[in-house]
């Protein structure tokens, strides 16, 4: 809902010129991506984690899935977001396995089975209000103290970066780092995918 205004395309770039009806389809794709794809993140992460051994690749894999899904949506919005996202993820994993030249046929078969198992109408969509706030609070509690303080001052009390620096008696640069780290941690919590132990 907050993704409307600030997202307009920069006019006149080559990239835009290549898009048919550039800004209209781009904003439709963005809207679709936020509304339909992002809520699947927890399930997508679970899927990737179950099917890829090297955990340090997961964030990159997720990004790759998002990029191809988004690029596809720029051309045409897929009719079934969930099926499309998992199909994309599955193809990505298979391609990676092929490239690694390990070709474990069983692994690919497993991927198929899992996609089928997970490709049911998701429960995550119905989870709206319950415990959202409690989870966020827990995430807030887990932040390092200074980072948490900066986020509380910024997000909850609504102070500017400069005011936070003055209040905490630290440099603006340090505040900036705290805010960036805090925002990332909270957002990951919102999507429910990545948990740092």
């Amino acid at each position, binding site marked *: 809902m*907050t993704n409307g205004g600030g997202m307009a395309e*920069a006019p006149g770039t080559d990239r835009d010129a290549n898009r048919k009806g550039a800004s209209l389809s781009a904003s439709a794709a963005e809207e679709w991506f936020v509304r339909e794809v*992002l809520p699947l*993140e927890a399930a997508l992460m679970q899927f990737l984690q179950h099917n890829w051994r090297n955990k340090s690749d997961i964030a990159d894999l997720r*990004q790759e899935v998002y990029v191809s899904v*988004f690029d596809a949506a720029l051309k045409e919005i897929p009719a079934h977001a969930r099926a499309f996202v998992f199909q994309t993820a599955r193809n990505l994993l298979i391609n990676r396995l092929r490239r690694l030249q390990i070709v474990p046929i069983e692994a690919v078969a497993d991927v198929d089975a899992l996609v089928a198992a997970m490709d049911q109408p998701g429960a995550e969509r119905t989870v709206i209000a319950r415990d959202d706030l409690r989870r966020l609070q827990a995430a807030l509690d887990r932040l390092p103290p200074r980072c948490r303080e900066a986020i509380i001052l910024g*997000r909850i009390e609504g102070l500017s970066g400069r005011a936070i620096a003055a209040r905490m008696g630290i440099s*603006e640069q340090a505040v900036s780092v705290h805010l960036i780290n805090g925002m990332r941690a909270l957002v990951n919590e919102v999507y429910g995918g990545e948990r740092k132990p």
Partner: protein
Amino acid sequence: MRPQHDADSIEAQAAEWLAREHFWNWSEAEKSALESWLAETSAHRVAYLRLKSGYARTDRLAALQPAKSEGSRFAWPLLLRVAASFVVIGVLGVAGAFYLAHASRPQEAAYSTPVGGHEIIRLADGSEIELNTSTTVQLRMEAGKRIAKLARGEAFFKITHDDDHPFVVEAAGHRVMDLGTEFSVRDDRNGLEVALVQGKARIESANGAADQRSAVLAPGDVAVATADTMSIRKETASDIANALGWRRGLLVFHNTTLAEAAAALNRYNSNKLVVADAQAAKLTINGTFGTHDVEFFARMAETVFGLHVTAKGTTTTISK
């Protein structure tokens, strides 16, 4: 190895943009710099979209704002130390009373919260009174009793018991006497509601046949008293804890109708919710909301129930 293109570093850059946008002076030049960064690759755009939309959802954190703790501690006038000396030198009682009347410390104090307010008053005797939205409590010492009058609203009392100085809550013509307790008192149009969390307390009507309208409450008891009736029901600890969710800035709904939930939120906000459709009003919801989550609530009605939401001035109308 892949310094600029891995998901982690892109997410870090996207977060930096978002932080600049939110917390630092955001100039037109920066705005267009962001636009070109976004246009560079879809990887930038999806990372930014993801963070921005996720961060927007953390707006619910604002509901976690802790209660402001009342700075100036109200001390019951001369409190226990002086009172103890009365016992020893009984004849000085009158002088003592005189002294009380002229004590420099405040003998009466009133505490109020506005709509949406939440405040904890810590008393010098260790007791705590937590005020919910739109609440006024007046404190005074009278005949050796600590008296708190709930003039309006709802408060949670955590009382340090003292046999010599009973703690009495007066509200809507009734009195609640602490026998070592934690309890909440709420005064609304339906009457006075007293929920006992811990310990024991007695509730009695200040006027009328006291013996008929007096009851000792045990944990889990919720007494509802009007001018001429009193009833007591039993609730589970978790129901009572949910009803006291406001102490943590939360409203907990369990099979609550949309109309009731809207009314509950309206207690805390000057931006009022109106459920304009009779059928929609009967839909039930479960979940936890911040006491200030009007916008989030409206959004939920929209996305979960497919209802229509229009905001105009300080009124948000939910309709079919």
